[in-house]
């Protein structure tokens, strides 16, 4: 049965020959967009990420740097095994140098492992897990846009400072929700607030009315939603029905994207407070980018933070490759990216830390009232800017093996 083991040597030789064929005079860079194109996160990832990556390549003008850039894309269906298999195949057989997007924490962690094994580059934009730059950090992975700790810090800290001193949590009953609640609670207590209680909601839940009544009864000033996706949408929708915000309690979404708010409409979501690192209507540059983006999207939708992240990371990656002139050593490329300060029209100036965490400012937003909203995508008003060095987890607290001491 083991007779075949000797054979793949020929296979390796064959693969080697194929690789030689693709190497041209120019350095060819192949970028893979591995996101969710069909499932629960296809609105924040999906085709938008491909559009964003193409815009980044367009703006970088690779031919001026002696580079040739190709973009491929695939759907990991939010299944870690599918994601890992595609990543493996891209690295092994399709000469992909860098993967980005990687929405969904479980898939992101799986891709990160494969990327380290193959010494390529993975820049995650969509996943929330802070483990990517914590215990499971690798020299080949950068976490670009946000993580759950930053969201907890942003929303939790800023809300308490603004007078939301007592909290009640609706917590999705699995690791993600519990982590989110734990991190936010820590921030709240640190800032002098108090957590009055919490209720664990099964995941997924369609009817939150019973849990909302419990939250209402607690008398807390802020109801924190430690959940995501459809759970968040359902809880916000039903909070409106039960007159929660009208009763003087504030709703704080701990993981909400502009696409979620768009789907809820301002009538239902008004008054919701949330943290995001990007909003299309922040300044002239984000507006210009978002217009270009919307022209290429079905339905003319505006970019989410994840899409902006893909644009920004592809740009920075290509800048690094233009310097190193080679994509062979993924860890070296990442080291180069960490050494160069980041600067792009969407996130402004920033840095990448040793643990792979990209640092930039985040913003506390409140969803506008229908009367204030002038158009379909006019959703947020900015309450405050939270500086990057305050919002992300301090470098020495993440237990990342790459950080010494």
């Amino acid at each position: 049965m083991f007779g075949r083991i000797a054979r793949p040597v020929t296979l390796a030789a064959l693969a080697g020959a194929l690789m030689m064929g693709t190497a041209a005079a120019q350095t060819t860079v192949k970028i893979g967009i591995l996101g969710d194109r069909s499932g629960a996160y296809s609105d924040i990832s999906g085709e938008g990420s491909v559009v964003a990556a193409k815009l980044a390549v367009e703006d970088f003008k690779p031919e001026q740097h002696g580079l040739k850039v190709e973009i491929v894309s695939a759907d990991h269906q939010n299944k870690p095994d599918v994601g890992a298999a595609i990543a493996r195949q891209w690295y092994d057989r399709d000469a992909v140098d860098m993967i980005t997007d990687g929405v969904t924490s479980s898939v992101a962690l799986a891709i990160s492992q494969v990327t380290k094994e193959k010494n390529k580059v993975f820049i995650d934009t969509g996943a929330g897990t802070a483990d990517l730059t914590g215990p499971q950090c690798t020299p080949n992975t950068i976490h670009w846009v946000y993580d759950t700790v930053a969201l907890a810090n942003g929303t939790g800290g800023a809300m308490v400072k603004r007078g939301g001193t007592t909290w009640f949590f609706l917590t999705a009953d699995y690791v993600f929700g519990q982590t989110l609640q734990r991190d936010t609670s820590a921030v709240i207590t640190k800032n002098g607030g108090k957590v009055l209680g919490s209720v664990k909601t099964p995941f997924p839940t369609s009817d939150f009315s019973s849990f909302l009544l419990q939250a209402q009864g607690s008398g807390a000033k802020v109801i924190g939603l430690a959940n995501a996706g459809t759970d968040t949408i359902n809880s916000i929708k039903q909070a409106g029905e039960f007159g929660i915000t009208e009763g003087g309690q504030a709703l704080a979404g701990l993981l909400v994207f502009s696409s979620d708010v768009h789907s809820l409409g301002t009538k239902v979501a008004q008054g919701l407070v949330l943290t995001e690192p990007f909003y299309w209507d922040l300044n002239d540059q984000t507006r210009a980018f978002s217009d270009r983006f919307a022209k290429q999207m079905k339905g003319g939708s505006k970019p989410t933070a994840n899409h902006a992240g893909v644009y920004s990371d592809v740009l920075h990656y290509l800048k690094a490759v233009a310097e190193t002139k080679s994509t062979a050593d993924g860890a070296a490329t990442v080291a180069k990216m960490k050494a160069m300060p980041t600067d792009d029209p969407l996130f402004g100036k920033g840095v990448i830390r040793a643990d792979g965490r990209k640092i930039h400012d985040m913003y506390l937003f409140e969803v506008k009232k229908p009367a204030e909203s002038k158009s379909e995508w006019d959703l947020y008003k900015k309450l405050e800017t939270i500086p990057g060095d305050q919002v992300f987890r301090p470098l020495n607290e993440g237990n990342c093996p790459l950080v010494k001491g």
Partner: protein
Amino acid sequence: MADTAAIDAAPIAAALPTTRDDKALHRLIFIGIAVLLIVAPLVLYPVYLMKVLCFALFALAFNLLLGYGGLLSFGHAAYFGMASYLCAYTAKQLGFTPELAILSGTATAALFGLVFGALAIRRQGIYFSMITLALAQMAFFFSLQAKFTGGEDGIQAVPRGNLFGVISLADDRAMYGLVCVIFMAGMLLIYRIIHSPFGQVLKAIRDNEPRAISLGYRASQYKLAVFVLSATLAGLAGSTKAIVFQLASLTDVHWSMSGEVVLMTLVGGMGTVFGPIVGALVIVTMETYLAQFGAWVTIIQGCVFVLCVLLFREGIVGLIARVVRRPL
């Protein structure tokens, strides 16, 4: 009506008696498969092949229950997924060697099969399917909430380890060898079960349960036995997959996985010996190459389901079997 435990349109292939000639033919096919397995990695990507083999074993195990026991379980993801969790957990947290981890996963699946099976066989036909589905859903919620499964992150970075503490499986070729051995062993075991006296009684129960009971066979014991066997082998497939892909996640316990294995068996031909293998090959290939089409994957899968049920109930291998007039 609820008593029709069996699939009425039992494939012709399974209905034909197996003669000595056919056994020789089957032996030839087994050898053919073994040769294919040796040659395949020269042309095809080994990780893809391993995925096909894991799912083929899963589908074979499922087909043992559906095709020969006449019981349509809509919750086989529970055994596949729970086994993969346990295997990943023992390999990663307790430092088990791969063979022990796979064994522990398989044993877990057997246990789940025993408990769920004992409950589910209390009803027949459609009720049976719905109960297996609901039980599997409980297993899903358990996996979601339990600490050791890591919730939606799953158990990541499972070490492939050293087989028997000696052979490193980090190399895809060694891993592929192990998967081939497990697959061949599983397949031959199932073949043996089908053609044993036990298998004959099963077919009798499938075709006419009251008659089998009146002949003195304890139908429910036979049904439970085949249920446990099927769950165990599904667990073997799930455990192997956890080691190959070095992760275990909610995907494997979700009900859409149960649907997928039904689809594989249906496409390949239920109640045929080789059908599930072909079905798994077709479906996994489809998923791999359709990945770039995104949202269309589920739609195409749905269409395949509908087409198979309406026009193509015998499946690919069932059709071939009818054309060559030999059971396959």
